[in-house]
């Protein structure tokens, strides 16, 4: 593995609790994420992984607890603000803009960085046109990076699943985020597609220094690419540490393999 040096904590959740109706999705969960590390959240179905990701990205607001990001503690934040402050995400079930091409999908990720007014953009004034070109250049780099040059003009709905997942990643990368949240980036993929995706994730982490928080089911994948792992079960944190620590943790083994009662 490369010489990635995790830095100071960039993101921390403390004492997070959230219930949906009578179902307790998360109970008093705390952990931190350090700069430039690959942090995995694992756990069986219904453990509360996606809920946790949704809280970090501002989709849900925790009933109790706080999220500290870049030294700023907050309870409520909407997804739009999260994106503006450098948190990008991908989705478990694909949420691409189906009627748009690969290029347009990824260009949408640049919306926040467009400085010229909406009207100027619409009328394609000089500065707005130049700005569009500059963003287009950056997006082309992302497209090259993800090796989807050939599909630039394809409607995303026509791409095979594995490539759609890649476009989803590209769209998030277009924000040039500090923290990238990946919700099961490898779910439903073939072994080959998984290997490709792993490579992209590690490259993003290496080349751009992006901090990565990912949810994943496939244990072997998680253990290979993560620096540290949080384990959730029934909304509670039952393990936290390096892949080796977690692998030897009895509570984790019980949660995954079942335990005699």
């Amino acid at each position, binding site marked *: 593995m490369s010489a990635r040096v995790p830095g100071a904590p960039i993101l921390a959740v403390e004492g997070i609790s959230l219930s949906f109706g009578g179902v307790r999705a998360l109970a008093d969960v705390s952990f931190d994420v350090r700069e430039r590390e690959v942090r995995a959240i694992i756990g069986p179905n219904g453990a509360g992984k996606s809920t946790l990701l949704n809280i970090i990205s501002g989709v849900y607001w925790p009933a109790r607890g706080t999220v500290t990001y870049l030294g700023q503690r907050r309870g409520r934040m909407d997804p739009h603000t999260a994106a503006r402050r450098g948190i990008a995400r991908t*989705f478990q079930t694909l949420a691409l803009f*189906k*009627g748009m091409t690969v290029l347009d999908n990824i260009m949408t990720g640049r919306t926040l960085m467009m400085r010229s007014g909406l009207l100027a953009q619409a009328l*394609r004034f000089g500065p707005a046109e130049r700005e569009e070109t500059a963003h287009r250049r950056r997006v082309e780099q992302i497209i090259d990076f993800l090796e989807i040059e050939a599909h630039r003009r394809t409607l995303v709905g026509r791409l095979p699943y594995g490539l759609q997942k890649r476009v989803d990643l590209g769209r998030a990368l277009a924000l040039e985020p500090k923290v990238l949240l990946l919700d099961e980036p490898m779910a439903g993929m073939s072994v080959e597609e998984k290997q490709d995706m792993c490579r992209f994730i590690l490259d993003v982490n290496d080349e751009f220094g992006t901090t990565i928080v990912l949810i994943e089911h496939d244990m072997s994948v998680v253990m290979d690419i993560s620096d540290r792992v949080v384990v959730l079960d029934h909304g509670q944190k039952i393990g936290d540490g390096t892949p080796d620590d977690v692998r030897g943790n009895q509570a984790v083994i019980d949660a995954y393999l079942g335990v005699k009662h």
Partner: protein
Amino acid sequence: MRARVGNIPAVALGLLCGAGVLAPLVVGDTSGGFYIEVLLGGLMAGVLYALVALGFVLIYKASGIFNFAQGAMVLFAALSMARLSEVLPFPLALAATLAIMVLLAMVIERLVLRPLVNQPAVTLLMATLGISLFLEGLGQMVWGSDIYAIDLGTPKEPVMVLEDTFEGGVLMSWEDIVAAITAAALVTLLAVFFRGSATGRALRAVADDHQAAQSLGVPLHRIWVIVWAVAGAVALVGGIIWGSKLGVQFSLSRVALKSLPVVFLGGLTSVPGAIAGGLIIGVGEKMAEVFLGPVLVERFGLAGGGIENWFAYVLALLFILVRPEGLFGERHIDRV
């Protein structure tokens, strides 16, 4: 291949439409001048339908909401315009009405759309139905329920063209000419607005997936205000043209619902589709009314009349059977 199979009904429908349009010339004893007049009348009505349909398409494209209130917005805009122009000069009244429509967009976004974000489409449809009824009531309450006039200041005398080509020439009204030019300008403007520009992209992104768009930092609320304001402005243009022709009255809101078959025929997500759909329905309806109606009466002994009430829907149904997403609608490929 799916495309090949799909082509046969499409070609058949195209031939049928072509035959229907040309039939009066071949079979009937129509003079060329009169035929052209009917055709132009149809195109003109089509432009009016298209203007309302545009409003539907804009909002659907950008928010996935089928805005039932578009007709009411046309009525409300026309009413405001008519009453304000009684006391203000035309340009000022226009600016004031535009401001009212923008304000209306902001209020709708804040009070109706924002609280209902991520609700099912049916809920939002019901909400727009509510807005529609509310606007109709508000319009009458504030502006009154009589028939009002909007005077565009165009010459009332129709012009005679092509006198050399056809016997009797072709009559065209200045109002129609102005309306057609306005509609063309508006469509060009909107096409530029949507095509490739970052704004257009953000609008389409919001339409496709609110949540994903939000996660990318697309300002959802602002986008919605913009779209509803633009739809309001389109409603205003439609209302002015329509109102100047028919007079501003309550029934405008109902007439506007005639643009429903237009949007389904043209495709809910397509600006050019709204125009093409409007023209097809407008011409089809007029032709059916003028040429098919009498045939039904003479040959089949029917009472006749009323053909303009249902023809648009039958035509739209035929098109939808062949192309469910409409003429220019986006084809969504759904995986099962």
